[in-house]
């Protein structure tokens, strides 16, 4: 794929924070990186950006070891927000552009362009620390986008944003992905990642515990069915090959343990009366997450 983390291990002293982590981010894909606090998301992203060295393992870009020049063209948003609190917004964006090789004019133009895109034109001359947290976050993403990056690595880009801001941020990231930029973003807000991302990497205790497209991961989860009858459903508990989660009057939720058990169940139900509903519940990612991290 485009950006590959290959068997990266990182130890701090005796503590192993990352253990043989491998993951890939494809062109045009929004890849969500989820995991509990302390699972190693930030460490992984810092290693991808080269601000931390792995104990072992490699990061590849387009199939070869990533170089300093490649990374210099990435857009990066660190975990704790990294900007100068006391500098004017447009000024510091210009500084970041110049750091990436823009000339003065080009830097100013690019800063204006992005500030307008993010609706921050009126705040361009204000000091960063006078902006609301949400607006600071927008400036932060602008800083990451200043140099038209070839890849984006964003640590918790949605944290601290209100629902409207989340939507516009998601839209912005989708645009980037559609333009062919691989995007790796971390979050602990699963619902959000589920809604926004194409691919998912779930990290637990420094290891990748699940990886794939959002759909694949949902499929892979144990499927839960809902059965609604016209009479009491208590008998369902006696059908073999099922794990019944709950029976509430005429409604049962259950999990198929042995393949084919659902057919037996349905046949018995039809013998006893009519079946009003038999459906497969689409699992929420939060359930997938709990399941794999457990």
């Amino acid at each position, binding site marked *: 794929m485009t950006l590959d983390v290959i068997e990266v291990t990182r130890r701090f002293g005796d503590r192993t924070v990352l253990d043989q982590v491998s993951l890939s981010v494809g062109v045009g894909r929004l890849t969500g990186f989820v995991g509990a606090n302390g699972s190693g998301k930030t460490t992984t992203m*810092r290693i991808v*950006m*080269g*601000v*931390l*060295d792995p104990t072992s393992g490699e990061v590849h870009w387009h199939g070869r070891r990533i170089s*300093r*020049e490649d*990374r*210099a063209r*990435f857009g*990066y948003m*660190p*975990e*704790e*927000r*990294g*900007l*100068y*609190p006391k*500098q004017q917004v447009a*000024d510091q964006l210009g*500084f*970041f552009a*110049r*750091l*990436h*090789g*823009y*000339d003065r*004019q*080009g830097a100013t*133009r*690019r800063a204006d*362009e992005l500030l307008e895109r993010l609706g921050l034109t009126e705040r361009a001359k204000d000091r960063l620390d006078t902006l609301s947290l949400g607006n600071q976050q927008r400036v932060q993403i602008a*800083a*990451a986008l200043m*140099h*038209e990056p070839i890849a984006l690595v964003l640590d918790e880009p949605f944290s601290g944003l209100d629902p409207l801001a989340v939507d516009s941020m998601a839209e912005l990231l989708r645009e980037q992905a559609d333009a062919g930029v691989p995007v790796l973003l971390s979050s602990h807000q699963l619902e959000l990642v589920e809604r926004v991302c194409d691919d998912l990497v779930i990290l637990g205790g420094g290891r990748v515990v699940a990886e794939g497209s959002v759909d694949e991961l949902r499929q892979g989860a144990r499927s839960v069915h809902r059965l609604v009858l016209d009479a009491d459903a208590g008998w369902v508990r006696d059908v073999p090959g099922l794990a019944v989660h709950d029976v509430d009057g005429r409604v049962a939720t259950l999990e198929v343990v042995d393949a084919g058990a659902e057919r037996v169940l349905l046949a018995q139900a039809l013998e006893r009366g009519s079946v009003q509903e038999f459906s497969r519940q689409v699992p929420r990612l939060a359930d997938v997450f709990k399941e794999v991290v457990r």
Partner: protein
Amino acid sequence: MTGSTRNRRGADWTVIAQREIGVKLRDKVFIGSTIFVLVVLIASVGLTTFFDSRVEQPRVATVGAEGSQVVDRANRIAEEDGQRVDVQVTEVRDVAEGEELVRDGEADLLLFPVADSGWEVVGHQSVDASLERLLVAAVSSISLETNADEAGTTVDQLTAGSTLDQRLLDADALPEPVKYVVTFVFAFLFYLTALTFGIYIAQSVVEEKQSRVVEILAAAIPVRQLLIGKVVGNSLMAIVQVVVMVGVGLLAMALTGQGELLAPVVAAGGWFVVFFLLGFAAVACVWAVAGSVATRSEDLQATTMPVTFVVMGALFAGIFATGKWLVVASFVPLVSSVAMPVRMLGGDVPWWQPVVSGLLVLAAAAVLVRVGARLYEGSLLRTERRTTLKEAFGATR
């Protein structure tokens, strides 16, 4: 979009240096304190010139015409001597009236002739020593003339063979007190500037570390470029400030009529600027490291302590070292920033010595930049707590 305006590679540290300078120039505290120091400097020059150029006009009451002659003579002596004194005279009828004037503060002194013994001055509570010296000179000069006349000879004959001419082997050397003052000023300027700008560098490093901007920077450019940019930016600002201060100081000397001292001081001042620049660049790297091993601004005091000692060492070596020790100090990098210009103030330094000493500082600066960058890289990316030097060196990068 703007892709065509990109110009990859090569501009990294200059962008950092420009930012450091730009931020400083917009920092109200920095601007304010610089203006304050300049105003104080200019004011002190102004006051010195004012007091120096003011002509003193002591009032002397005299009894009889002879007294007026003494005062006239006193004024002539003062003029020949280049003293800014213009003694005013008030003739009074008798001693009692004169004493009255002195007591009322209308006159500073009463001068009258006393039969046989010569003259007497009467003051209120004290007699101004310099005025008394002047009057004594005038009285003795007049008496000498009178006595010579009476003895049938002339003053020139009487004083023949009594002149004492002065000749200096090293006329270019500065007088000892001037040298002392200039030394002190140079040493203190270095100390002050190295300290203030050093703290700026350390703060700027720790701020970036604290706000995590450094992660973005380190991902975009090599850490060494970041270090070089900071050191260059702040060194430039420091040197501009020093040049302005030294310039104002020299101007002060010119204005206060000490122009003849200017040439050797300018020469040493020039060297001072050169050595300051070299020494500051070297010490700046150490400051950057002091900043980068701290995690929060609060830690700075502890981590910058060793650098402060080095700078203080340079200050004291410049002020107190003499003879052999001063020569040794003038070749020790960092310490030489003060010691070498101070030696040159005394004259008698072969031309190759400052050159060698300068090269030594340069070499030290090159080593410090490398070591500094390594420490900086090692410690910068640990933001959890203060880093020990060992850890900073050991960190793999």
